[in-house]
């Protein structure tokens, strides 16, 4: 029995329903407000010659990086305490997670620097957030999205974070499944290296639950890699391939890209002035 026979796209539908309800409830939750206030003060200070935008930018970045790691730690700690996430990966998990938070923070700052009205900025951020979510490779498979929209899948941080987090979390064996080597044995699943050669060992679910029908029970795999590859059949973003470094670098690049744009925007905004032209008579 191959995987494709026992898994359906049911999960996509479930997730879609969940977020169609969930995301509108989150409308308006935008972190642009405080930055809008802060940039207004900084603009005034720059204009009056108190500070330079570059000094402020560097000071802000110096504080922001450790602060976001602290926020990331606060968010992840309960998962390790209560849900027993894989402790050995906590360092990498924190790096990946905090980098994503940093990327979002930099995007929020950029929006606040460009859009001076806090409410408009918050709405714009909300749209960005939802776009990130939509193109994270969970709600819609990446390969189903047409170009140029598919570019969003590669340019927002959520997809990369989710991929790495899933990889780091699905790192241990799961109970309820055993290894099996016989590809012809009923109930023995395996992934394919290529279209014809199976990756051995495979796995089978041999406990009592295996007596249930496929519609009620899906056998995902024994190892974390098998489980994540099984999930990857429905969510192509997920894979047992270790992409943590790449994902981190992509999100770091998004962060630095947004920060670079922020620097330009800050300089433009704070130094914008309307020189009076020296025309005495009209």
């Amino acid at each position, binding site marked *: 029995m191959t995987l494709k026979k026992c898994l359906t796209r049911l999960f996509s539908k479930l997730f879609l329903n969940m977020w169609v309800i969930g995301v509108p409830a989150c409308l308006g939750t*935008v972190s642009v407000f405080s930055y809008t206030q802060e940039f207004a*003060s900084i603009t005034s200070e720059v204009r009056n010659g*108190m500070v330079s935008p570059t000094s402020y930018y560097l*000071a802000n970045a110096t504080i922001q990086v450790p*602060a976001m790691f602290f926020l990331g730690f606060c968010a992840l700690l309960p998962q390790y305490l209560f849900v027993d996430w894989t402790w050995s990966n906590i360092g990498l998990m924190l790096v990946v997670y905090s980098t994503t938070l940093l990327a979002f923070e930099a995007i929020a700052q950029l929006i606040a620097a460009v859009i001076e009205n806090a409410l408009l900025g918050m709405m714009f951020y909300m749209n960005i957030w939802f776009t990130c979510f939509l193109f994270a490779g969970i709600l819609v498979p990446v390969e189903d999205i047409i170009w140029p929209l598919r570019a969003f899948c590669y340019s927002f941080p959520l997809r990369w974070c989710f991929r790495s987090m899933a990889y780091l979390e699905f790192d241990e064996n799961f109970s309820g499944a055993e290894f099996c080597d016989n590809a012809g044995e009923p109930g023995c699943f395996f992934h394919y290296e290529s279209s014809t050669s199976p990756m051995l060992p495979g796995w089978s679910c041999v406990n009592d639950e295996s007596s249930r029908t496929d519609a009620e029970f899906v056998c995902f795999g024994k190892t974390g890699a098998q489980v994540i590859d099984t999930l990857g059949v429905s969510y192509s973003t997920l894979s047992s391939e270790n992409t943590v470094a790449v994902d981190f670098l992509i999100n770091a690049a998004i962060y630095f890209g947004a920060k670079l744009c922020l620097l330009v925007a800050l300089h433009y905004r704070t130094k914008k*002035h*309307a020189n009076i032209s*020296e025309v005495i008579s009209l």
Partner: protein
Amino acid sequence: MAGLVFTDVSFTVSGSSKTKKGGGDPDDNTIDTGSVASSAASYVAKTSKKKHILRNVSGHVNSGGVLGILGPSGAGKTTLLNALTLTAFGGIAEGLVTLGGEPMNYNLFQKRCVCVEQFSRNWEFLTPRETVRFAADLYLPDLKKIERREKVETMLEKMGLQICADTKCGGTLFQGLSGGQQKRLSLAVALIKRPSLIFLDEPTSGLDAASATAIMEFVKNLAEVENLIIVVTIHQPSQKVYKLLSSVMLLSGGRVGYFGTSNGAVDYFSSIGRELPADLSIAEYMLDLANAEFSSTEDVNALLDAWDERRSNLTAAVDAVAPPKAAKVAKVMKYAGWKQYKTLTKRHLKLLVRDPLLYTGRALTFFGVCTFFSVVYVATRNREQTQVLNKVCVVLCCVVLCCVVLCCVVLCCVVLCLLWL
């Protein structure tokens, strides 16, 4: 002239509108610049128009003087202030502005001027003492620390802020200083720079009569003692406040109705047949005369035309005074990037600890929300086949919901702000 001189300052905004052929615009401030596009088949022509928000506004103020710009709503007070502070966007500003004989530009403004905005932008979670200290550290990096501290204490005392020196400023999230204290603090920050020229946008608005008078008395003394040039816009001054101004400019519809000493206004209006009624103060009377909404347009135009006639004499008088070259330039802040960086890092670290909106509140919220989800999905502790999808869900929640929560606190703050305002 070692002061601020502005000559023929105009501000024009352009726009286009569709008008019927042959139609005119009754607005005096609007002039047609010609039909730019018209279709033979159409009875509607697109007309490019220029609207003069300010027209040929001239004035001057010397060191030690306080110029009050008065006028009803829509008179162009803020636009004039914006033009003088180089922040008149969305149109074309023309004219000549000089400070101590030097043409006003962005660098000169940064070095020698300060603009105190109508709504204070003091850091909410810093105390006045900290605010002025940081300002001193940033504006005067070359002074010794002990000297800076002395200056800060002197400034706090001078501004009457000693009593609230260690109270957080407050603002949108909580009530801290009063409106008058906030404005005095903004002034203290401005003065630490030791500028030559201070622009104050509506320093008395939102204050009771006693506070408004106190602020303006302070401003007048400041100008005299520190030999500063101060330009203020005032919407509706009381008689007491009016008397504290050394010179006044009355604006209406972007034009000048009077410019001269505050004492000379009564005589001037008498000379053009507008005697001051016994039951009115001169400030009220001037605003009544200039208000086109409650006076007849003809009367207001006559008032403005009368000033235009007098104006040529005044301009000649100003021109006769040759501005000395390189008038004494106030001490200028030296750019000290590293020191600025250190001071700003220190200031924002302090804000980080105190301001729940930025990080601390979010950290607590993150922890709370993620604890909630981990408890909801506590069954995923067991690495079983049946928990695989739940584990995916909890990872997804962690990623997505924290991004949402990043902003959740902010939304609450916006609502609080709206309620507070």
